[in-house]
């Protein structure tokens, strides 16, 4: 059987056309399916007042953290206040539903939509720029992303002032969070790298994981302040003035940590700091109880 050259050319064109039909114009690297239901694994750290270990706080950040009073969250205006997206995903019951939005004309992924019961945020992949600095800041921020190999990497800014931990380590509106989302089989891991020129001297990194769970139920979030008010009367703002926080060292006392080490800072994040800690004084253990946030 013999083919003419023109037949071969036509067959080649048909083959290319078939390839285009079978493999639509998706990004080459967007090969990992992140969509679906993901059940969180909750990390109950960062809930002890006075525990800033491992956080590279600067002086301003430490001052803000030390002025934090745990009853601030019980103020009527704070009862339904969500966490910023990254700590919310880490500590809240963050059952996740991840979906995509496709451009109807090109079938390209425009954004990944992360839905948790207390929050929603979108990660834009269509190359749009971040809004100007004066644009509205939100607890969900503004995120744009791209694929790096099999990992979705996105950057979030335009965050409202919030917290890094549940007990007052602050996050400023100037913060930027880089998030890396990687699927390992039926596990989903997110790495958060927080940079904050106002309160941190170097990036702060932490991780969270989810398990694929198509049967989970994401509850509604019908939060609203009670009309009877809260346990904190309106108009008061619980806080500690500088140097007046009398519960600050309880955590360090209970765990036998030098109080200075419990206050964080970049130096305390490095392994060599353990040697220095052995030369530092601890306070007598006078308490076996200290404040821990339960929620």
């Amino acid at each position, binding site marked *: 059987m013999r083919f003419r050259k023109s037949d071969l050319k036509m067959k080649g064109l048909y083959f290319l056309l078939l390839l285009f039909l079978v493999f639509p114009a998706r990004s080459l690297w967007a090969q990992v399916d992140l969509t679906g239901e993901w059940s969180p*694994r909750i990390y109950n750290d960062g809930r002890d007042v006075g525990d800033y270990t491992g956080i590279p706080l600067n002086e301003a950040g430490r001052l803000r953290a030390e002025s934090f009073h745990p009853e601030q969250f019980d103020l009527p205006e704070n009862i339904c206040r969500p966490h910023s997206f990254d700590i919310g995903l880490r500590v809240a019951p963050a059952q996740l539903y991840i979906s995509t939005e496709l451009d109807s004309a090109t079938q390209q992924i425009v954004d990944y939509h992360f839905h948790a019961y207390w929050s929603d945020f979108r990660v834009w992949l269509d190359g749009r720029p971040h809004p100007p600095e004066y644009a509205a800041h939100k607890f969900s921020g503004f995120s744009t992303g791209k694929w*790096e*190999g*099999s*990992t979705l990497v996105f*950057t979030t800014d335009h965050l409202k002032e919030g917290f890094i931990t549940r007990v007052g380590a602050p996050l400023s509106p100037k913060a*930027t969070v*880089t998030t*890396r989302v*990687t699927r*390992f089989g039926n*596990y989903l*891991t997110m*790495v958060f*790298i927080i*940079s904050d020129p106002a309160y941190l001297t*170097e*990036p702060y*990194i*932490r*991780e*969270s*994981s989810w*398990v694929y769970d198509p049967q989970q139920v994401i509850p509604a979030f019908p939060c609203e302040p009670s009309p009877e008010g809260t346990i904190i009367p309106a108009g008061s703002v619980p806080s500690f003035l500088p140097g007046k926080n009398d519960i600050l060292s309880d955590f360090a006392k209970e765990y036998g940590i030098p109080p200075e080490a419990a206050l964080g800072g970049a130096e305390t994040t*490095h*392994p*060599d700091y353990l040697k220095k800690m052995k030369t530092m004084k601890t306070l007598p253990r006078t308490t076996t109880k200290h404040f821990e946030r339960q929620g």
Partner: protein
Amino acid sequence: MVVDPYGTGGGATGAVGRGPREVGGEVPGYLKVVTTQMRSGYLRKNGVPYGANATMEEYFDRFTDPYSSDSETWLVVTTVVTDPQYLMEPSITHAHFKKIPDGSGWDPTPCRGDEAR
């Protein structure tokens, strides 16, 4: 360690009682290591145990953060321990390490019986 690019464990060998059996593979973007035949031990220093039938999966992800001032390189390890004896579902933990370019942070010391770990 036996390299198994698909993480199936097919063809890997391990000797019972002579140490953990590890199966590793370069999945695109990260390294997966599966370890079995471990001696029983502790998941946490406060005594939460794992048994001899536990399986440990580790996922090694190395990356550079382009937004840090000096493009820091990080290694994040996600560890999943599955244990039919002591756990109802897998336990997932993480560890992260920042690359020190000059190796100055590498200062191993011998194990001492009089020091707490």
